[in-house]
């Protein structure tokens, strides 16, 4: 039974894959993700129409695309959720290597789509943002390194993972994509925290983050302007945040009605970064509350399930993925309500997006794979230790 403890789920001969998957998967979270995707489609119906009209496309062009990419994302999610943990680890590390290379070549081959930061590869029919795919891979790799460090006589995995994290953060900051950089740093920090980091070191890292932020503020005008916009008490109503705030206030508790919103016509990112503003305006606090509850449920539920997990790698990787997912949603919505400075961050599954939705699907699929119920060592052992 030793093998069980070290990760792989037992497979009895003749046990069919799908029923076992269904038995062990976190069905609630799966359902919640589907619900999120549904909400995303609903909002896409409202929010993406202006963009389609602006680009002389059929009004529901982006909705159909969303269905297409979303379908692929859900398929990827289910596919990933069936992977055994060892395979998750292998694929994750490979994915990380691939997307890291893609990230390296971004300045040469990438495009900025006129948005001031080179973050994308243009594939013609769709764009592809390597940093989105990098995140799950990065989490898996770091979890693996950290878990290995917990073995007696294992490698200094924490140091390695820190170096990897630094490299990734520097690459992302150079784009510049401070939002993703923060996310990566946060995911690493959370894993390190759960992996048993000394508190002093955590504080040191926190200090480093603050220092880095100050450096970025003074060095990058792009960054400084956003922070300044956030810190000024007066909201300039012509900024994205100004419009978003106004939309939330317009919506009130029950919204102005389906299709009656106006913010989607003024906000250029209404279908991506500020989709929550569209939701708030048209459907009111009710839908926003539902969305918040969905994200919270997915994140917290995953974390609670991981508390029972005995395998360090599974625990760490799951924590990283769940937290990255939750924090991305938190940051996106925090920006819309002006709790946080403006960051280009999408709302996973709800925002319109091509490759990013698929990346989210993969990440959540891996999370689901990690939170599957599996035997956690021998009963006797557990009971004996409880007694001690």
């Amino acid at each position, binding site marked *: 039974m030793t093998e069980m403890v070290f990760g792989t789920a037992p497979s009895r001969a003749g046990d069919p894959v799908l029923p076992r998957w269904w038995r062990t998967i976190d069905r609630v979270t799966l359902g919640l993700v589907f619900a999120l995707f549904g909400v995303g489609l609903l909002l896409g119906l409202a929010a993406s129409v202006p963009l389609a009209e602006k680009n002389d496309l059929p009004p529901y062009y982006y909705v159909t695309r969303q269905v297409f990419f979303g379908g692929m994302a859900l398929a990827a999610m289910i596919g990933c959720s069936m992977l055994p943990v060892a395979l998750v680890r292998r694929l994750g590390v490979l994915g990380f290597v691939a997307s890291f290379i893609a990230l390296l070549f971004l300045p040469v081959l990438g495009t900025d789509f006129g948005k001031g930061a080179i973050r994308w590869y243009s594939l013609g029919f769709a764009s592809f943002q390597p940093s989105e795919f990098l995140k799950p891979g990065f989490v898996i790799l770091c979890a693996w390194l950290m878990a290995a460090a*917990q073995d007696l006589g294992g490698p200094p995995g924490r140091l390695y993972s820190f170096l990897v994290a630094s490299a990734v953060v520097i690459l992302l900051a150079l784009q510049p994509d401070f939002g993703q950089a923060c996310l990566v740093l946060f995911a690493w920090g959370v894993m390190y925290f759960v*992996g048993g980091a000394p508190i002093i070191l955590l504080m040191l890292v926190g200090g480093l983050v603050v220092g880095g932020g100050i450096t970025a503020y003074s060095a990058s005008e792009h960054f400084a302007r956003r922070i300044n916009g956030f810190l000024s008490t*007066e909201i300039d109503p012509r900024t994205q945040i100004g419009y978003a705030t106004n939309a*939330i206030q317009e919506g009130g508790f029950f919204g102005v009605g389906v299709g009656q919103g106006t913010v989607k016509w003024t906000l250029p990112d209404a279908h991506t970064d500020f989709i929550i503003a569209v939701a708030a305006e048209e459907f009111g606090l009710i839908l926003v*509350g539902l969305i918040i509850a969905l994200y919270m449920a997915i994140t917290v539920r995953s974390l609670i399930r991981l508390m029972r997990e005995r395998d360090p790698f599974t625990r760490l990787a799951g924590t990283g993925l769940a937290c990255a997912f939750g924090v991305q949603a938190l940051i996106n919505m925090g920006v819309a309500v002006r709790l946080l400075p403006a960051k280009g961050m999408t709302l996973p599954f709800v925002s319109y997006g091509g490759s990013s939705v698929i990346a989210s699907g993969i990440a959540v699929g891996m999370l689901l794979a990690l939170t599957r119920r599996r035997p956690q060592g021998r009963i006797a052992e557990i009971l004996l230790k409880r007694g001690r």
Partner: protein
Amino acid sequence: MIRTPLRPLARILSARAKGENPDAIERENLRLRHEEMRDRSRLKAEGRLLLLGLAFVAGFGLVGLRMGVLAASAPEEPKSGQAGPAIVAQRADITDREGRILATNLVTHALYAQPKLMVDPAGAAEKLALIFPDLDAEKLTKDFTGAKKFLWIKKRISPEQMQLVHEIGDPGLLFGPREMRLYPNGALASHILGGSSFGREGVASAEVIGTAGVEKTFDGWLRDPANGGAPLQLSIDLSVQATVEEVLDGGMKLMNAKGAAAVLMDVKTGEVIAMASLPDFDPNTRPAPLTKGQAGDSPLFNRAVQGVYELGSTFKIFAVAQALDLGVVNPMTMVDTKSPMFWGKYKIRDFHNYGAQNTVTDVVVKSSNVGTAHIIGMVGAEKQQSFLKSLGFFEPTEVELVEAPTGKPLIPKKWSEISMLTISYGHGLSASPLHLAAAYASIVNGGTRVRPTILKTDKVQEGERVISEKTSETARSLLRQVVVRGTASFGEVPGYAVGGKTGTADKPKPTGGYYDDKVITTFASTFPAYDPKYVLIVTLDEPVESSGDEPRRTAGWTSVPVAAEVIRRVAPLLGLRPEVEPGLEAGVTRVSSN
């Protein structure tokens, strides 16, 4: 603390002794240690995961709470915000002494373009050129299609023009609200009000700043929000001002003068009730300052305040009043008036020969230069100097107009005896009509110094005494007699007992010396002469009265009739009743017996 040995040596040794392989034992031991370590870290992780979960609950809860707060709050009116410090647009009104509006604000719009938003730049440019004929379609097209992101097209447009621009329907043509300064009375009191223009301009608003007159003097006050929108109340009376300007304009044309100025002043408070300078301008469309020629010829030039002229015989009353006050003469003292009079190499002559001797009264009434020169000779240069100084002739007037300091009197560098003599009859010292008004007010109001002010006040100025009450009374009667039987006989206005003194001064040539045929004529008057309430100065620049056989240029023929007409019309407006003079009552039978 119980130390667990790193390796289970006892068991290994015993196993070795038994000949078994100790590796299995060691592996098992390692596994157990591993297990124990992991349990420890798991326990730690469990706590930390719980903490993380709670942090997320708190985070999402905070976002949800904030959403709820936002949703519950009322949406703000979308206002077009302005980066940078806000521009305070509200400027206080300016009113006359009765509260009638002289300057106020009007909401209007500025037209600007954001070429990036334009749908049809060329078409819009063409249509704009049709609405605003002064715009050039080609140049606009170039601006709209160039690299410019923003450009002003018109600073102020009318509602009709705005509607027409709306009808072009181009989203790149935008309007910025403006608060525009409006002077509803047009050119009325233009020199007092001055004017205003836009200072800093933004899309949402523009700053209105004063450029001249009280608008500039009180710029800070007018813009100060702390005043709570209280208007700036001037001492000007709008209807009196209008009358003065109208009569002065007619008189100026009738007398073929190239310029004119008038000051009407309250003798007790020093308030300027009306002040006009012609030619004038419309402060709504303030003309640009002259770039060449004399500044004094610009309509912007305020002749009443900025213009300093030799005011001629109007000064005689100062010499005579001083002599009376010092007691060196009395009104009946006979004074030598043999013309010409010789003083060293200088020769002083009168307009006519008035005989060998005249009384002091007649010197004033007939306006004898020689007589006045003899009188001031009895006073002396130093005393004359200090007296004129006490009347304010050595400093610019302190009236609250930004232009006032430029109206600095021209006084001789060296106050020689000949200066003393010529200044006694108003040559050799230049001062503004406002100076003269203030000095006359000081002479006739009982003898206390008056300083002119443009702001409404009820306070009687209790300035320092310049002459005694009694001398003031004598001076008033002298002035009255000038009108009754002297050079200002056209100045008689029945019922208002006008008193005054004429002054005709040859204009100095810029090259030195004086013109023969260019004069400045002044009539400094006060009414009612037995109890003066107001002083009126009327000055005409180069007037010629040509109704007779030969052109007449003296003040008696030019300024006096204009001033008389002003008094005839403004006295009722000022609330003065026509009255019979106390001294003349003897020949009048009163109907009512009170």
